[in-house]
């Protein structure tokens, strides 16, 4: 018999709030902390707004990406009633996705190297010690499996799906799962070069949407089997992931891979799409993404299922996005309430989606969280709250 996957703690940090509670308050109040970047300087004529985390403690260990993960982890562990010390030496897995955190993106170091200045290699040592999953696993002296999905913008979702399979398969009793990413000049300029960054706050599914805003943050979930008898907040019921096999950066127009991923996730959950309480869409606000995702949502789910895009409050946090959205999804189920999607005003027939335009009450049911990625990856998670 395979183990159920209980969620006993959740934590997040993003521009909407440095804790999950603060994020939910911001979102229910419709507050967006989207502004020109402070951490990033460029020589571009235009400043593209981003969703930056403010007041991240310097006392946390590691790179900014790793610090964000630690901050969310502390919140999740506290809710799960676990101390760092009691995890030491235990068969606890760590699966944390990232994109920026796995890339050797130290521009100053590389610039000096190119110029023949022969820089000190401390940045290399820093890079080698800042893989978020390894950093946390090593610092807590954990003995379980450790993995770091780097499946671009679906990394956080995949990390949770993989960690859930560890619990189901009995590989570990507890798993720390999630995603983390910091804002970086490299990704900032990269997305602008691809012409998919917006010069204004994003408008998921809106007719006049013109691109995404980058963000940063982390989302962490504590997953467990029921050995510890800790009160469960909810359960991961299904996970699916499939490739479009179509294009390196564009989603399949009909969302071929996303449809398959959703089918896989619902098959694993053993439920039908009409049990869905709401969808936390990938909803980046790029023309291609929202159109493809909208097509899939229209064809797969009953028309009355509410659609929400939390990226309208967090920006696109890349490898953290799926994890932050997973945390928000479970919290919304627990709150019985779903925020309005900020920025949406005009219906787009090509998408066919009207996301939440005001905070709404939601019945008990299942939450679905979608992630689409560069490379054609599509991943989905299904949650239900406990009780």
């Amino acid at each position, binding site marked *: 018999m395979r183990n159920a996957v209980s969620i006993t703690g959740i934590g997040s940090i993003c521009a909407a709030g440095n804790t999950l509670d603060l994020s939910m308050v911001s979102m229910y109040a419709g507050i967006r902390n989207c502004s020109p970047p402070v951490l990033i300087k*460029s*020589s*571009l004529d235009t400043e593209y707004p981003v969703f930056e985390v403010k007041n991240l403690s310097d006392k946390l260990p590691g790179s900014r990406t790793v610090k964000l993960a630690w901050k969310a982890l502390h919140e999740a562990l506290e809710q799960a009633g676990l101390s760092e010390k009691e995890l030491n030496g235990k068969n606890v897995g760590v699966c944390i996705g990232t*994109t920026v955190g*796995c*890339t*050797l*993106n130290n*521009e100053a170091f*590389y*610039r000096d*190297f*190119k110029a023949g200045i*022969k820089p000190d*290699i401390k940045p*290399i040592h820093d890079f*080698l010690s800042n*893989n978020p*999953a*390894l950093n946390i696993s*090593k610092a807590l002296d954990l*003995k*379980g*499996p*450790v*993995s*770091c*999905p*780097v*499946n*671009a913008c679906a990394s956080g979702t*995949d990390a949770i799906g*993989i960690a859930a*399979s560890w619990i*189901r*398969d009995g*590989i570990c009793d507890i798993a720390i799962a999630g995603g983390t990413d910091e804002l970086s000049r*490299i990704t900032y*300029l*990269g*997305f*602008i*070069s*691809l012409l998919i960054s917006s010069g204004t706050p994003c408008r998921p599914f809106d007719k006049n949407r013109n691109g995404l805003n980058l963000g940063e943050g982390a989302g962490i979930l504590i997953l467990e089997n029921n050995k510890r008898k800790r009160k469960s907040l909810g359960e991961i019921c299904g996970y699916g*992931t*499939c*490739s*479009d*096999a*179509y294009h*390196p*950066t564009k989603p399949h127009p009909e969302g*071929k*891979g996303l449809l398959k991923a959703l089918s*896989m996730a619902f098959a694993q959950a053993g439920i039908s799409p009409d049990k869905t309480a709401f969808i936390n869409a990938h909803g980046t606000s790029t023309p291609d993404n929202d159109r493809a995702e909208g097509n899939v949502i229209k064809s797969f789910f009953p028309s009355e299922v509410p659609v929400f895009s939390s990226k309208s409050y967090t920006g696109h946090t890349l490898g953290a996005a799926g994890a932050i959205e997973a945390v928000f999804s479970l919290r919304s189920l627990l709150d019985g309430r779903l925020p309005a999607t900020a920025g949406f005003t005009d219906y787009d027939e090509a998408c066919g989606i009207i996301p939440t335009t005001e905070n709404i009450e939601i019945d008990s049911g299942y939450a679905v969280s979608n992630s689409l*990625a*560069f*490379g*054609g*990856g599509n991943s989905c998670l299904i949650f239900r709250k406990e009780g």
Partner: protein
Amino acid sequence: MVLSVLGMGAVSALGGSIDEFRAGLEGHGKPFIEVAEFPVYRADSSGLQNKRSQRALRRIDSFTRMALLASFDAIKDSGIALKDMGRTGIIFGSAFGPLNTTFAFQDSLIDDGDKCASPLHFAASVHNSPAAQVSIQMGIDGPVQTLSAFNHTVSGVLELARSWIENGIVDTVIAGAGDEYCPLRGYATARMLNGIAPSGIQPLDFDKCSYLPGEGFAVFILANGEKPSKYGVLKKTSVRVGIDESNSILKDGKNIKALFLAANGNNGEGETYAKINAGNIPVRAHSHLYGAFPCATALSIAAALLSEENSVLCAEYSGDGELNLYETGEK
């Protein structure tokens, strides 16, 4: 559950195919070592041009070319057409990802300014670019995943493949791992070794630092252990095993006929390898043929699967004095 290894592909300093890799292990053919500022084992993926059209390879970077070549080679080696493999997934691993493309993007900023950031290099610099290209070029629309956790990358890839097959998510997994060289890695190695280049890797001399960077990519075609396998089976991977437990496994494992080490001339890791008590069974390591890089463990496992012995234990330093252990079984 054990995994049948139906086919393998290997791109390394020994050549661009599993046949050249096997020949190199047997002492036929020498590794290609490029000597610039520092010696480096360079992989040869030029053979990809014979398998794919120029159009298909347009804009495909060096790292992804290694992954593509190893994947096509592995499928050819299996003798099974892709369409007959059933539901197929892809899992790749890399510690560093497409390094040269990562830096090519930074070159565009440094050389030409922020306004000239290269969208092509940015899009191809994501770690999952190789897996995505294999998926696109082979038309595999099943699950596709990429992992990156330094010395835990290869174990993660193989265990996820096992999970997908065991849980019926797919029938077959194209599982692979590798890393590429870039001049910055050469510079970092030179700095770590105070500019003194070893004459060549001596992987079984654990006291000596003989580390030289390399690059390569190995791919395994994996299926349920009940399927007839060309190279035997991969048993469960054990991660973070202490030395005492590793030695117990070796002592109690009557069927283990050889020990393959992923040792690579790094004497820091050598301290742990030196504590392994293999008893009377032969101990082998092959990094002197393909160089040092975190995912070279995949080539070590390929070497183990190619060995004459039916049952081999592969050990990889996983950090903090512990090992990841991979066991092969009956062909």
